[in-house]
């Protein structure tokens, strides 16, 4: 690394916004996106004329129905933005890549205020068909089942059709290697549900206890229904600004201290060298290499829980506990509760608040750093937050610090 602070410290999150979030809202992705974007721009104390950058993940036309949200051209045109920089795409350090790209664009002077958004309408899209694997639901009747190339050819023939299956392989290895139990894993889900009760936007707020969890139907062992996040509709947006605007923003800015972007193992769900960690290991390591802060400085953690197991992987990868110790770390739930040593997924995470695909976690990190969490605000110190996104061979992380603002 070259001398001087990492370039991402030229960037700060000065505005956050979010649309309605829910199950089967029946609204279009662009409609929700406009709500979130206008909310974020106003929250930053700006107008659309100030926005000169636009980024999203993953960009239009990616994945299953309801997954990608509108692309940047659609949003740019709807808001008639005059852009100096714009970016979208699914490859990179997970969903975080859109934010990280915005930081770098600001650092090199390509833009000053970048609007970043992530929109999903998976609940409405899946309303008819239930949960589906990445390869689709299969069509046994038509006789014209499609064939598959690329990575999917190595998994779909064997019925490993969903990320649930691929992550379950990681889970069962952790059961074998570290003695992980379902009772331990449950506490990621139970913690999320407890926090979701304090989040009016969360999609699942009714109480859940360990018996409920253990009685849930199995999806792919060791993952049961409550280990899998809840598809929802919603859009999250933020404004990433040059740090010299931070003091002028109406709310305390969330300064970007370090980004985690590395992928040093093989970019593969089944060939990665260490099947108990995967890319979270590399992204985390690269983030800590870019800062003098250490894990014990972190006050709040928003760690990806597309599957509960991934949260455990991130806890270890980020150094909050030792390798293989995350099950014991979350056991009982007190350490990760709002008043615990490391408050985790304080809005309910994706498991209970809804699968806003990484950006819900990012939004909540900013809410907590600002001290705007209301009933669910972490008591005491809230100066440093970490946000981690992704699973398997896809991972990105962000270390945020609270500005004085």
């Amino acid at each position: 690394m070259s001398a001087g602070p990492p370039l991402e410290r030229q960037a700060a999150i000065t505005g956050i916004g979010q649309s309605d979030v829910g199950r089967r809202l029946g609204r279009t992705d662009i409609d929700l996106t406009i709500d979130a974007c206008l909310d974020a721009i106003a929250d930053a104390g700006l107008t659309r004329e100030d926005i000169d950058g636009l980024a999203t993940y993953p960009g239009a036309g990616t994945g299953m129905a309801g997954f990608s949200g509108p692309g940047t051209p659609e949003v740019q045109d709807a808001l008639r933005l005059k852009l100096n920089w714009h970016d979208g795409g699914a490859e990179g350090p997970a969903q975080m890549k859109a934010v990280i790209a915005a930081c770098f664009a600001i650092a090199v002077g390509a833009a000053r205020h970048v609007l970043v958004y992530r929109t999903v309408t998976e609940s409405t899209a899946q309303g008819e068909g239930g949960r589906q694997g990445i390869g689709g639901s299969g069509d046994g009747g038509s006789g014209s089942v499609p064939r598959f190339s690329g990575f999917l050819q190595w998994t779909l023939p064997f019925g490993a059709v969903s990320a649930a299956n691929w992550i379950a392989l990681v889970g069962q290895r952790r059961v074998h290697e570290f003695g992980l139990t379902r009772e331990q894993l449950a506490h990621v889900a139970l913690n999320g549900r407890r926090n979701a009760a304090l989040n009016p936007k969360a999609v699942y707020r009714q109480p859940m206890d360990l018996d409920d969890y253990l009685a849930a139907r199995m999806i792919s062992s060791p993952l049961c229904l409550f280990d899998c996040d809840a598809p929802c509709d919603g859009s999250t947006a933020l404004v990433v600004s040059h740090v010299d605007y931070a003091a002028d923003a109406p709310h305390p800015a969330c300064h970007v201290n370090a980004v985690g972007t590395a992928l040093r193992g093989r970019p593969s769900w089944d060939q990665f060298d260490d099947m108990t960690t995967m890319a979270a290991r590399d992204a985390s390591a690269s983030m800590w290499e870019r800062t003098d802060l250490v894990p014990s400085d972190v006050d709040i953690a928003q760690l990806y829980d597309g599957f509960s197991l991934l949260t455990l992987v991130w806890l270890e990868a980020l150094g909050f506990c030792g390798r293989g110790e995350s099950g014991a770390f979350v056991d009982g739930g007190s350490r990760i509760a709002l008043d615990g040593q490391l408050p985790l997924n304080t809005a309910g995470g994706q498991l209970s608040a809804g699968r806003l695909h990484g950006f819900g976690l990012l939004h909540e990190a900013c809410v907590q750093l600002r001290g705007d969490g209301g009933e669910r605000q972490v008591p005491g110190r809230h100066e440093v937050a970490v946000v981690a996104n992704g699973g398997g061979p896809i991972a990105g992380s962000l270390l945020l610090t609270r500005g004085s603002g």
Partner: protein
Amino acid sequence: MARDSRLGTTRTDHSLGRWIGSVPSIVASIVAMFANGPSIRLLPRLDDDNRFFWTGGKDGVLRFLKCGSCHQLVHPPVPVCPACLGRDLAPEAVSGRGRVHTYTVNHQQWIPGSEPYVIGLVEIVEQPDVRLTTNLVDCESEEGLIGSDVEVTFEQHDEVFLPLFRSVDSSKENNS
């Protein structure tokens, strides 16, 4: 099972009642607990890079690309050896033996009509960092699966031969 036979799959019937009374009890005692895979096999699209792999089961042999310079097995197939950057790669037969690195029992009906089946991640004995996502077949129990020794068995669908793996012990039992 009509759908299975139409697709040419071999499946284990889960309904013990079908066995009892129609076959000797010794067969009922080795009936598998899990299905051998999903009800429908989604298949690879064959091309010049992967055809050797997916059709190798025709003569009962599992093959991987091998580097002619440094002798690394390379998977998935690419036209360069990631270890030495050699360009002289050719399919090479391996023993078909492997070891289970991890597994999961899938219960979700991603593919309608599927009974619970075992997805395995198998390390190839010749080079354990080469792994295959596969199905563990004729599998009675989850106990002791990880670390157990397995061998390839192929399941044909048209020109594609899917490499599945079964316990070395259970295959001996079947042959006896």
